[in-house]
């Protein structure tokens, strides 16, 4: 069995036991990146020397019998939207192509403190705006299951990297589905935690009230391990939740213990918009829960139909303000030969931002303009409250809600890129979760007729990650979808 077939936890345990060196595992990953990534395009940067040095340090400490962290020696990847004090932090944008952060994001710091080996940073839709990673201003990433298809987005690089086994786990960020949807498209596990569970400090902001960092893994357990490492209060993020209010649970400890008296909620009418193959896979997964003794309850989610509209007002409003700082004055791309300082702004931004980013900045600017604020922004906030209410009421009847992650499986490269509205609609099942701030996970639950993976979305109440992971694990333990490998990649490495 190849080292790449190990899960992150299996690898970690073997490294800790001295059965395999972190250097060996890291080199294997770096070699595989060289072979596979020219095809997949998951990475924007690879830290070969740095990774090997980190791996050597772990091996030395293990050899010396010293204590090591819970991810000791495990090669992982980080979406290039999180600041690292090493390498560039580009956000997939030409405006930050050569930007080097002087500090590490809290989540990155926690990975390093857990002795993870960060092998590289992954491609993404520019500033996390997109659902296919096609909006990256720097690179194309394709789906490891079918290289003519998109990996999803915006965390497409991280999802593709985990699926192509060019890392053992990865971090992404999710504002409207950007972890769960690419996880679904790439056949891996992706978790968006509760808003406030993971510090946003050092996460380059898109929609600040929606953004949340979360893990990708090939298994629920690997995602649980990653979450355990990155979760927790951070005084540097005022919106990160105090552990007095919501303690970080041991997400791994009882992971394999099924939830007794489980009630699974389903919003049938809402799910009806998905492709038949997706619907069948979800129905099968829900039947699986019933088979495991769960009670299935129908929940009404009357306001979810308005989620996309509300989201594209709130997220773009925040984005228009968050992205104002990329102005060519202080850092990042600056237009050559500006006539005056106003041109420093207008031309730098015009030349270095991509189309979708400009579109969202304009949308958000419009929504916040005086005279329109009440009609758009304020109304969107009201809708957001109604959606929160839908979830609160639903969770009075059930422990978790099952629904599709996306209405389709991975679409073709270029298929939706010129039709932004169609692209936006592909986030119909994920966006409400961000608006409500609750956690959601995507776990593999089947394949369509083209052999493309389908994800099951399981959504829980705020700060219910421990239970949510156990529920996801109940599905995973009864199925083998997560063990399948993308054939396109197997052919390259064979």
């Amino acid at each position, binding site marked *: 069995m190849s080292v790449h077939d190990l899960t992150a936890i299996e690898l970690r345990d073997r490294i800790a036991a001295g059965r395999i060196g972190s250097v060996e595992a890291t080199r294997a990953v770096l070699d595989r990146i060289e072979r596979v990534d020219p095809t997949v395009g998951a990475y924007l940067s690879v830290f070969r020397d740095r990774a090997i040095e980190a791996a050597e340090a772990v091996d030395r400490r293990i050899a010396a019998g010293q204590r090591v962290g819970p991810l000791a020696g495990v090669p992982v990847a980080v979406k290039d939207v999180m*600041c690292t004090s090493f390498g560039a932090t580009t956000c997939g944008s030409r405006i930050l192509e050569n930007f080097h952060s002087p500090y590490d994001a809290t989540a990155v710091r926690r990975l390093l403190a857990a002795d993870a080996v960060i092998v590289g940073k992954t491609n993404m839709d520019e500033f996390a705006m997109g659902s296919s990673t096609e909006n990256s201003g720097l690179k194309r990433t394709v789906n490891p299951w079918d290289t003519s298809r998109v990996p999803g987005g915006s965390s497409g690089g991280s999802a593709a990297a985990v699926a192509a086994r060019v890392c053992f786990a990865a971090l992404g960020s999710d504002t409207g589905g950007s972890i769960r949807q690419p996880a679904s498209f790439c056949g891996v596990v992706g978790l968006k935690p509760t808003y406030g569970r993971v510090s946003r400090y*050092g996460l380059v902001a898109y929609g600040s009230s929606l953004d949340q960092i979360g893990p990708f893994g090939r298994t629920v357990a690997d995602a649980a391990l990653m979450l355990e490492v990155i979760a927790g209060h951070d005084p540097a*993020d*005022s919106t990160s939740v105090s552990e007095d209010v919501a303690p970080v649970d041991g997400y791994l400890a009882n992971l394999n213990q099924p939830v007794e008296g489980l009630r699974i909620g389903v919003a049938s009418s809402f799910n009806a918009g998905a492709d038949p193959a997706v619907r069948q896979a979800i129905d099968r997964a829900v039947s699986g829960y019933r088979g495991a003794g769960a009670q299935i309850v129908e929940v009404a989610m009357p306001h979810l139909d308005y989620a996309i509209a509300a989201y594209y007002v709130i997220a773009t409003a925040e984005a228009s*303000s968050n992205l*104002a700082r990329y*102005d060519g004055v202080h850092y990042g791309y600056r237009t050559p030969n500006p006539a005056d*300082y106003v041109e420093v702004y207008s031309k730098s931004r015009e030349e270095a931002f991509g189309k979708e980013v400009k579109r969202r900045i304009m949308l958000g600017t419009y929504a916040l303009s005086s005279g329109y604020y009440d009609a758009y*922004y304020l109304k969107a906030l009201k809708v957001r409250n109604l959606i929160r209410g839908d979830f609160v009421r639903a969770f009075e009847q059930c422990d978790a809600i099952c629904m599709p992650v996306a209405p389709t499986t991975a679409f073709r490269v270029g298929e939706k890129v010129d039709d932004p509205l169609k692209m936006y609609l592909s986030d119909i099942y994920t966006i409400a979760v961000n608006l409500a701030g609750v956690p959601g996970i995507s776990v593999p639950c089947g394949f369509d007729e083209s052999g493309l993976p389908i994800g099951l979305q399981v959504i829980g109440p705020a700060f219910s990650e421990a239970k949510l992971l156990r529920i996801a694990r109940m599905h995973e333990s009864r199925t083998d979808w997560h063990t399948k490998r993308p054939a396109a990649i197997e052919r390259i490495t064979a």
Partner: protein
Amino acid sequence: MSDLTYKIIVGLEIHVQLNTRTKMFCGCALRFGEEANSRVCPVCLGLPGALPVMNGQAVEYAILTAMALNCEIAPFTKWDRKSYYYPDLPKNYQISQYDLPLGSNGYIEIPLDDGQTRRIRIRRAHLEEDAGKNLHTAGYHSQVDLNRAGTPLLEIVTEPDMNSADQVRALAVELQRIVRYLGVSEADMQKGHMRFEPNVNLVIERAGQQFKTPIAEVKNLNSFRALERSVAYEAERQLDAFIETGATMQMGNKSTRGWDDVNQVTVLQREKEEAHDYRYFPDPDLVPVMPSAEWLTQIRSRLCELPVQRQVRYVQEYGLSDYDAGVLTADRSTADFFEQAVRAGAASKRVCNLLTQVGLKLANERGRDLAGLGLEPAGVADLAKMIDAGAVSASAGNTILSAMVETGKKPDLLAQELNLIQKSDAGELERVLDQVLAENAAAVAEVTAGGKKSQKARGYLMGQVMQKTRGQANPKIVSELMSKKLGV
């Protein structure tokens, strides 16, 4: 035109820089005059991914000041982003407070020349972060120094309740006294700790009709003088402009003017109020502030008697002149020093004289406060008591106070060393007086003759006694002896 009368209407916006240890939303120390961009971090540089964290001390200072200004304190307040592009604003938005300011509907009592006070309403008081500074010293390129970026500013907005340049100045001075009293700002004008923006217009009555002139806002004034003069200038300018053009206030014809300190005139900056759209919205990176009752009680307990109240009390309680009371209450440490000396048993007027005639003069010369001179209230009280007991003369007292500052010694010791103990021994003084009377028969005659020259002659004789005793004779005793001997 002779039947024309007018009234000046002024409202004031004041920015006060709070002297917290660190910046408004990050841990950078508040220090100025250092190397450019040396007091910065990812947060105040507005780097990607950095997040603000509210400085609780700044909020406390702001609430304390708002309480001193009799404001209602908002039970729920929040932070809003105010968007505009300028190179000294690293995020291209300023974190401020828009529709829910921390304090509102307050008032401030300002002292008027006649000893009365006038109540000026405060519309709102809110907290915000300052921007950096653009430096235009490097030829074609400008440079940006972000050391000041993120400094906490308290913006106070009054209602248009002032009707003269004097009142505007009085408000500014009073506010400076208040924030210094509260210890929330050094309020050093030279360092730009207080910046003023008056909104000025006139209400003109002519031929039974009332006209309002267009409002002019004068930006960024950082001295009381400039504030006062710009308001006075605006009144004249607007009156002239009205007489010339008849232009009156309309929607959107508010202008923005700057103060030209060299020519002592205001200069037009923007004719029409541009349709500024700051696109305010709540900052999603910060949580709302809901001050608890306990917190507010704790802050309120630090509220002290304000200078204007203290000044009035000094006149009533200590019988001081309004002027002296004003001098003593100008800053809190002087007033506290004064009261401690009085509490140590000294007469208030005597302490007042010592402090205003000598103590504060020395303090000003050396740029310190009284305590900084090494003086202690108890020492000054002892000296005041010595003077009132006749042990030293009032003028010797002033000499001793200076010597106390120089040497740090106690007043009684200094009186001995400097030979300033008054001679109150009637026997000894009588011998000296007898000698003087014998030597100055002409003057004695003038005194006894009474009439016009009597007082002058008496003064002359007294002077001779002082000369012979090197100023140490107790004038009261000498005077009594003289009256007895000369029978007048």
